């Protein structure tokens, strides 16, 4: 069974601060996604990283895939209240095409206080 560990589980910071969320595994993934979920809604895809060492930027969000494709990080610069939500990382299997879905971490609950 492939497991993804996210840290921290909960994070509450002031508007304008920077933060980093981590997603770690002992397994190799063919790709890794980050989702954001708001209360009462389904997760929404933010980004997919595929290549080891890959860095992607989405406005103030920077995503990195580890060189060995076992871990990833999400860095938010100058956090804003609109960034509040549950952030989930999810990995696609390294073999077999991944038709059996993604493995999800338990998520990081992020609160940005004005």
């Amino acid at each position, binding site marked *: 069974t492939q497991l993804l560990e996210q840290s921290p589980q909960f994070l509450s910071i002031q508007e304008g601060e920077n933060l980093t969320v981590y997603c770690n595994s002992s397994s190799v993934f063919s790709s890794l996604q980050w989702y954001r979920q708001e209360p009462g809604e389904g*997760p929404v895809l933010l980004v997919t990283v595929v290549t080891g060492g890959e860095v992607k930027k989405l406005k103030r969000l920077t995503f990195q895939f580890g060189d060995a494709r076992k871990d990833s990080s999400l860095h938010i610069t100058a956090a804003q209240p609109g960034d509040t939500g549950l952030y989930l990382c999810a990995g696609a299997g390294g073999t077999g095409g991944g038709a059996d879905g993604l493995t*999800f971490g338990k998520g990081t609950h992020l609160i940005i206080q004005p």
Partner: protein
Amino acid sequence: DAGITQSPRHKVTETGTPVTLRCHQTENHRYMYWYRQDPGHGLRLIHYSYGVKDTDKGEVSDGYSVSRSKTEDFLLTLESATSSQTSVYFCAISGTLWEGTGELFFGEGSRLTVL
């Protein structure tokens, strides 16, 4: 946004009664999934489908069955609901898994309470 609708969005039922949740997509995607989301457990895969009448079990399939008679519809059935099946259920679709990216598009969820 991907065209996915789940019904019902909210349901309260009693232990021992059957329950069916429906997921309908307008994207003609091949892959469909049912997940449940619980505090402390995150999202866990119940069943998935890789085509019409082609389904398989996920991590937490006990007590659940699924059917897919048409590309657009994926039904999740609890034959005899138990309190442990109180959860938020999410349907997801993907058209790209065999290309290796594994990106999912989720419905808005169905909140089920079993008394």
